[in-house]
C-alpha cells in the first residue's frame, strides 16, 4: 500500500504523541499503584473499625496479651521489656556499612 504524504504526516503526529505521552510512563505507573494501594488501605481501616472482625481495638485489651503478661503465672510475668522479653523478643543490630563501602570502592554508585 502506497502512503500519501498527508497520511504519512498524520502517522508521524500520532507516533510523536505516543512517544511524548510515554515519557511519563513510570510516573503514571506509580500513580496507578497508589490508587490500588489506597483501596487496600481503606479495607484495613474498615476491618479495624468493624466489631464483627475485631472485638478489641487496642493491643492492651487483647485477652491473650493479658494472659501472657499475667503477673502471677504469665509466660512473660515480669511484664513488657522485662527479663524474659529481653531474652526472646528483643534483638541487636549489625553494622553492614563496610560491605557497602567495599562496593563503592569498586566504583559503584548508590544513592546514599
Amino acid at each position, binding site marked *: 500500500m502506497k502512503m500519501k504524504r498527508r497520511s504519512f504526516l498524520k502517522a508521524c503526529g500520532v507516533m510523536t504523541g505516543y512517544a511524548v505521552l*510515554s515519557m511519563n510512563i513510570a510516573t503514571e505507573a506509580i500513580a496507578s499503584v497508589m490508587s490500588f494501594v489506597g483501596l487496600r488501605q481503606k479495607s484495613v481501616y474498615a476491618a479495624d473499625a468493624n466489631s464483627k472482625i475485631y472485638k478489641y481495638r487496642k493491643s492492651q485489651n487483647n485477652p491473650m496479651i493479658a494472659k501472657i503478661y499475667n503477673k502471677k503465672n504469665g509466660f512473660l510475668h515480669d511484664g513488657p521489656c522485662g527479663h524474659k522479653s529481653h531474652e526472646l523478643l528483643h*534483638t541487636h543490630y549489625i553494622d553492614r556499612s563496610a560491605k557497602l563501602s567495599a562496593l563503592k570502592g569498586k566504583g559503584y554508585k548508590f544513592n546514599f
Partner: protein
Amino acid sequence: MRLIEGVMYRNYAPPKGADPDRITFVMVDEDKCQGCGACDEVCATGAIQSINDDGIHRIVDPVACMNCGQCLTNCPYGAISEGVSFVDELFEKLKDPDTVVVSMPAPSVRYGLGECFGAATGTYVGGKMHAALRKLGFNYIWDTEFAADLTIMEEGTELIHRVKEQGQKDARPLPQFTSCCPGWIKFAETYYPDLMPNLSSCKSPIGMLGPLCKTYGAKETGTSPKKIYTVSIMPCIAKKYEGIRPELTDSGFSDIDATINTRELAYMIKAAGIDFNNLPDEDPDPVLGESTGAATIFGNSGGVMEAALRLAYEELSGEKLKNPEIKVVRTHEGINTADIKVPNFGVVKVAVASGLKNAAKLCDEVRAGKSPYHFIEIMTCPGGCVNGGGQPLDPEIQASLFRSTVAQINKRFRVRKIKA
C-alpha cells in the same frame, strides 16, 4: 524456575546458616528487561542500575539491595523475579507426620490474598485464609497479628522508658525508630549505622512470634519444640532475608524456619485444589492467635504509630482513650508529622515516613541532631505492607500491552539518541 501469580520464582530454599547478605532475593531476567527504567524510578537505594547502552538493568549486588521488591511489582514486563522460595520444602513438611507445622500470617496477607481468587482489590479474607491454612495441613493456625499486639506492648513500653530516662546517664537516644519493617532495618544497618542506637531493640512481630511458638506455644500445646516448623507468611520479600538472620535463634532453634509471601500462599492453595471462595470463615487457634484492630493496621503506613499511640496515650495520661482512631498519623505517601497532646504528660511528637527516600530525609535530620520527634515510624514500601513486594501484582501495570509497546518505541528513540 516456576511462575507464581505472575512472578517467576527460583526453587531455592537457603540451607540453615546461610549468609543472607550473599543471597539474591530479587533478580532481573536480562532477556525480558526492556530498559524502560520503571524499576530505577522506584528503587530508593539505586541498587538496580542500567548496565549497558541498551539500558538493561541488573541488581548490582545484594548488599546494596533492601529486598523490598518495589522494582518487581512495578516492572511492566515481568522481568524481575524472586530468588528464594520455600514452597517445595513447605509442601514436604506439611506431608511429614513428624513435623508440627505452624502458620504465622502477617496482617496484610488477608487484604491481598483474595485478589488471587478474583476478589476486588483489598477485599478482607482473614477468615477464609485461616480456613485455607487448616485445609493445607498446618497443625497450628497462629497469627502474626497476635505478635503485633505484643510488639505494641514491648515497643510502646520501650518508648515510655526512653522518654523518662532522658537527662540521665546512659539514656538511650530519642527519637526511637520502629523496627517492624525488614527493608528499613537493613537500610539503617547499611546506610545509617550510626543511628542504630535509635532503633527500637524490639524484634518485628514475626521475629517475636517465631521464638514464642517454640517456647510458649510448645509449652501450652505440649509439643516438643524440636518438631515445630514455623512458617512466616508475609506480604514481603525482605522478610525472607529477616527469616534467615543468624541471630534469630533465641528459642534455642532457628526461630523462623520458612518464609513465603502472599503470592506463594495463593499458589499453594490453588496447587492443593482448595476451593478458596467457598471456604467458611474460621478463627485462628487461641493463645497465639487472637488479635485486635491495633494489630491489623500494622499493614498500613502509619499503622504501627497509631497502634502504639493507642497504648502510649493511656499509659502516659492514666486516662482511657475514648476514640481509638488517631487519623492524623495515617499515611498514604510521603512524610507525615503530628503533635499528639497527651493529658497529664504533654506533647508527643511523631513522624511517619512511607518509602526509603522519605526515610532518608528523617534520618539526615536525626544525624544532624535537629530531629524534634520522640517516635518515628518507617515503612519501606510506599503506603505500607499492603503494598509490599510479596503482594499480588497490580493488574494495571502488566495488562496494558499498548503501554508496553509505547515504551518499546520510546526505548528505540533513546537508544538512537545515545548512539548519535
